[in-house]
């Protein structure tokens, strides 16, 4: 008798367990027509997106789930998430090559309200007539300068506006390294956490100038016209650095940043996203820093700006239900037009309603607020002064394999065990081979 009582109670509890989640789902469905599931690409902005999602749900009743993929695992996470019964309704691609994988899953955004908010059509990715992805954050990179150290060495930022100037300053600092107590460049780390600064970002420059010459925006056979200039700047980096080129392979991104923070080097190639790591208590203030263009000795250097572009594009999942697609479009529109949304995405310290820092992005939408990021402000100032920003053509690099192979060749070259010809071959022949694989 007793036993059957227990089992009855158990049965009731188990049944209740099954009904309760069901009931809450039904309640949620009753309130809102659709829901949003955003698979976020940027781990550094996870907390802000979670807060924004809650705020949006409180305001509209539409449930928003934000899941952030761990660093460097976005593609894998997206592949497994999108095959599930409740796939992300909103996800990222990193440019035209990234879109190649996902174009069959992207909803055509033509005619949507968010597309009308873009400041320029250039920020949308198209496949034929269909607009499949739109940029959500614009970033800049260049050479970050420690102005205090530079003036200790007897120079000012204004003294550098060509590759020749940069080379003279860097080599002079190296010549007086012992006397000054610091080097010209932070270690050009070729560890996986940092080599993208060279095989992707630095490699953008010879590609940009070649595209400019040819009047093209992508190609399946690169000539490598400016690879000698690429060699010159890479040589400058590795021969005027804090460490011996042979050990660069083991140097990480953190090493490079820490050297810069510790005042061991004047120049540090990185981007506007690095701002929050460099400025703050016990770190630098805005007055100590500047970002200058990466000069490689090509083109009109006096009018060259920072490298500015994006590899963050939003897509909407075509296979989501119509009401979820609509809910997602509404959420995106709210993010880039509402006061809360634009503050959160573009603001700095204290921009979130909870008092936390905002995401600090420059968003390419009409409602964008002015950024507090020094490097972003500098980019705007350069453009205002009539300088032409260098566009991000590295989004047309054929594959991750191409980048890795180039990185490997650069590393061997830096260490003196490989030749520059291997780098050229990885760059030019690798490009053609990888593009042939793509089709």
């Amino acid at each position: 008798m007793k036993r059957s009582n227990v089992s009855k109670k158990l049965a009731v509890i188990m049944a209740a367990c099954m009904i309760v989640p069901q009931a809450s789902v039904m309640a949620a469905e009753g309130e809102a027509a659709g829901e949003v599931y955003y698979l976020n690409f940027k781990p550094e902005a996870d907390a802000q997106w979670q807060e924004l999602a809650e705020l949006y749900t409180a305001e509209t009743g539409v449930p928003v789930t934000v899941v952030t993929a761990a660093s460097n695992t976005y593609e894998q996470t997206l592949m497994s998430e999108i095959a599930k019964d409740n796939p992300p309704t909103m996800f990222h691609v990193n440019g035209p090559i990234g879109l190649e994988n996902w174009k069959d899953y992207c909803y055509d955004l033509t005619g949507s309200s968010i597309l009308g908010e873009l400041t320029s059509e250039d920020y949308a990715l198209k496949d034929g007539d269909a607009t499949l992805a739109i940029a959500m954050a614009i970033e800049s990179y260049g050479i970050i300068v420690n102005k205090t150290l530079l003036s200790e060495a007897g120079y000012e930022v204004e003294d550098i506006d060509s590759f020749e100037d940069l080379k003279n300053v860097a080599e002079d600092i190296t010549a007086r390294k012992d006397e000054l107590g610091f080097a010209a460049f932070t270690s050009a780390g070729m560890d996986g956490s940092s080599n993208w600064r060279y095989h992707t970002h630095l490699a953008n420059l010879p590609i940009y100038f070649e595209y400019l010459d040819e009047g093209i925006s992508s190609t399946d056979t690169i000539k490598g016209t400016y690879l000698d200039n690429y060699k010159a700047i890479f040589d400058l980096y590795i021969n005027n650095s804090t460490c011996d080129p042979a050990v660069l392979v083991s140097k990480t991104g953190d090493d490079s940043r820490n050297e810069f923070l510790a005042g061991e080097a004047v120049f540090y190639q990185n981007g506007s996203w690095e701002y929050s790591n460099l400025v703050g208590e016990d770190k630098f203030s805005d007055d100590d820093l500047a970002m200058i263009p990466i000069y490689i000795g090509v083109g009109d250097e006096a009018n060259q700006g920072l490298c500015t572009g994006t590899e963050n594009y939003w897509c909407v999942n075509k296979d989501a239900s119509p009401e979820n697609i609509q809910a997602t479009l509404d959420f995106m529109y709210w993010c880039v037009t509402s006061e809360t949304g634009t503050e959160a995405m573009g603001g700095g310290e204290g921009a979130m309603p909870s008092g936390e820092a905002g995401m600090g992005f420059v968003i390419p939408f009409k409602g964008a607020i002015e950024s507090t990021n020094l490097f972003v402000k500098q980019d705007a100032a350069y453009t205002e002064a009539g300088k032409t920003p260098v566009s991000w053509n590295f989004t047309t690099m054929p594959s991750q394999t191409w980048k890795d192979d180039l990185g490997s060749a650069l590393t061997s070259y830096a260490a003196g065990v490989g030749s520059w010809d291997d780098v050229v071959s990885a760059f030019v022949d690798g490009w053609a081979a990888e593009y042939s694989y793509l089709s």
Partner: protein
Amino acid sequence: MEKTIKKFWPIFVVPTLAAFLVGFLWPFLQGLYLSFCKFITIDKADWNGLKNYIFALTETNFQHSFWFTALFTIVSTICINIAAFAIALALTRNFKGTNTFRSIFFMPNLIGGIVLGYIWNILLNCVLSLLGKPLLSLYAPYGFIGLVILMCWQQIGYMMIIYIAGLQSIPNDYLEAASIDGASNWKVLWKIKIPNVMPSITICLFLSLTNGFKLFDQNLALTGGDPNHQTEMLALNIYETFYGRSGAAWKGYGQAKAVLFCILVIAISLIQLRATRSKEVQQ
């Protein structure tokens, strides 16, 4: 007893069987199907016929990875088992502190492969840079030696425990009889100990062979396949094929390689099991 088993067998069999079907057999069959397809996500796969297999079998990097992996497996299996057996012999001699030593030798096995890979990467690179030699990811032979050292360090303790268990299960009568008959230590080792620990040798060889072939974490963390894919083992090659390039075809190629890899590992382990089983003796 028989009756109870007849009545309750589903309780014991069904959960395991279900887990096997859902967690192993179904994904395996689906993987087999996908290896003939182009796909990004598994629910939208387009048939691609034998092209994936043709690509996998003709790709030079994959062939290089196979030979590199095979060489690594042979060298590491020999090193690990000889060292583990020697330590096991030493630690079954009843001197003071054997238990402490056993624990210490076993400990490296408790650390994950990725972590070990990064730690050894720093250690070995420090040594190499002090010696003025190229670092691990710059010179493939050093990368290879580094991988062998790392694997030995991690696996010897584990295999040692298995060998110790084997050595301890040899009946003392055999050893006493041998010593009364005046057999030398060498003879005891070859005629009594080794034939009697054959089951342990079977297991240890099986484990170190398959571990060697399937090595991924340590490879990724220690050399990442550098320089220029020269230290890329099979599992890492499959991973790079899968994620290194955009486009549906590459997932199919990676999948085909994974199926070939699976068949290869199963075949090698079966051959090895058959070969060593035949040497086992009944006590």
